[in-house]
């Protein structure tokens, strides 16, 4: 059986990787579009920041359960419900951590000097080449930041997981829920150990990002 901490790490890794793949195109669009209603899309992306996690979890529970359209569809093709499953947690976490990935991505992409992009195009590069050779490397610190933030945010997730995944050890019981559980059962020693682990991981992650970005900015100056 997978421990709560490992489950949390796995969930965070899968979520932030998915957010990298899904969030980059959204961020690219937000950074470069001239669409006038862009702010509407930005608001939707930012919604999980202000929404209570329980509210988000509640709606997701309705949608992902057997009676929800997505839940029913998932049940038809896989044979089990999306709610109270790891896949369900992944989906919930992707939505919940979306702004933590997309916002740094967007800021990073938008900050790349447009003259460099114009130079790339006039040297004959396709938009694809311009993105991978110029935009992406120059935006990398912000992209790493977005990846790490969504990772850390997912790691600390509580409300959405509780609403959506319940508290099934080995399947949906993540570290933060296990800590809560242990405190409820007055097992402070285990809760303290788990808390310390989460604290250590989160801190180490932030130190790593800041060190990476600092080194990179120094090189580009």
């Amino acid at each position, binding site marked *: 059986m997978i421990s709560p901490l490992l489950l949390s790490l796995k969930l965070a890794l899968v979520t932030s990787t998915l957010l990298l793949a899904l969030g980059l195109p959204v961020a690219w669009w937000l950074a470069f579009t001239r669409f006038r209603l862009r702010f509407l899309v930005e608001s939707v992306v930012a919604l999980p920041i202000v929404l209570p996690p329980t509210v988000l979890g509640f709606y997701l529970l309705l949608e992902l359960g057997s009676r929800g359209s997505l839940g029913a569809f998932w049940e038809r093709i896989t044979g089990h419900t999306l709610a109270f499953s790891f896949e369900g947690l992944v989906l919930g976490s992707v939505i919940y951590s979306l702004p933590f990935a997309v916002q740094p991505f967007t800021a990073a992409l938008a900050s790349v000097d447009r003259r*460099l992009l114009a*130079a*790339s195009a*006039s*040297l004959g*590069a396709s938009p694809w080449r311009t993105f991978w050779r110029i935009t992406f*490397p*120059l935006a990398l610190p912000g992209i790493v930041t977005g990846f790490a933030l969504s990772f850390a945010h997912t790691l600390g997730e509580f409300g959405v997981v509780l609403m959506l995944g319940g508290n099934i050890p080995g399947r949906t019981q993540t570290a933060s829920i296990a800590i809560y559980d242990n405190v409820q059962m007055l097992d402070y020693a285990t809760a303290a150990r788990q808390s310390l682990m989460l604290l250590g991981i989160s801190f180490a992650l932030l130190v790593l990002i800041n060190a990476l970005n600092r080194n990179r900015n120094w090189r*580009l100056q």
Partner: protein
Amino acid sequence: MSAPHAALRVELQLPLQQFQLQCSFQARNEVVVLFGPSGAGKTSVLDCIAGFRRPLNGQIAIGERILFSSESGANLSVRQRRVGYLSQQPALFPHLSVRQNIEYGLLDLPGPVRNARVDSALERFRIAPLSGSRPQGISGGEQQRVALARTLVCEPELLLLDEPLSALDLSLKSLLLETLFEWQREKGIPMLYVTHEQQEAYSLSRRVLVMEKGCVVADGEPRQVFSAPASRERAALSGYENIFDAVVEETHPSLGTMTCRVAGTDLLLESPLAQKTGGEAASLALRAGDILVATALPTGISARNVLTGQIKLIEDQAGMIELRVLCGKTEFCVHITRGALQNLGLQTGQSVWLIIKTHSIQFLRG
């Protein structure tokens, strides 16, 4: 691919904030200077040709190759145009080395060909020792040389330069220009060079297009274009330091001259004959460098305008001396050399004579 020596044909209309950009011109295998004040639309013209802006109407073509045509709807993307563009900012990729910057436009070529071309560009632009450096680590002049190499190594069919050297000092500038012109002659491609400095326009090209408020208002050799300024703005811009409102007093068709009185004064000037009649208003322009200064009344001289005045101000401007001389109520700006100043021993307050040839005086249109 179009043949070398393909000419650029431009015809475009584009509404801008202040005015409508509306111009048409051609450029063959030559350097053409686009000259005009800031905000005249020069950069917008380059942006349309490069593909960064889409004209409302018109056609842009290099030889047979249509880059843009509002009629057929053709509009090649920036990368398909094969147009080199260099602006004041070198816009080097900061995360790539000098060598990687230069080979950026050649990534589709096979390795050995690419390397050979990059090597020869590094040699030619004298940046081989910098090839491993990052752009942040080299000087502004070196950065601009790298940018130039990066653009030219792609062998564009047209080169657009938007004041590319204005941030550099004189010696660096001439070195780069030399390399640039050598390349242009060798490849025989058209080159459009934007500048708002008249000196630069003189030294760069035998053909200048003057732009004002979105239109090409003059096209010709620098001497010819700059010596007959059409408007007050261009006169001031072209180095006509003295511009006066005047009234035509008398015309002398048999002598080919007219007598004009500077408006609001008694000062009379003899000027070349223009399409004007007595009593009509006119604007006169006169270069500060075309006025002679004498400390005694000159005799036996062909110049028809000899005015007496008093020196109000002597100012040392880099490389020359500017005098302000008051003749009656009219102040003239006069440029002389430092040697002349010392030789004549000129002082503020001293009385002098100004000598102006009839044909140094130009009429402004309108």
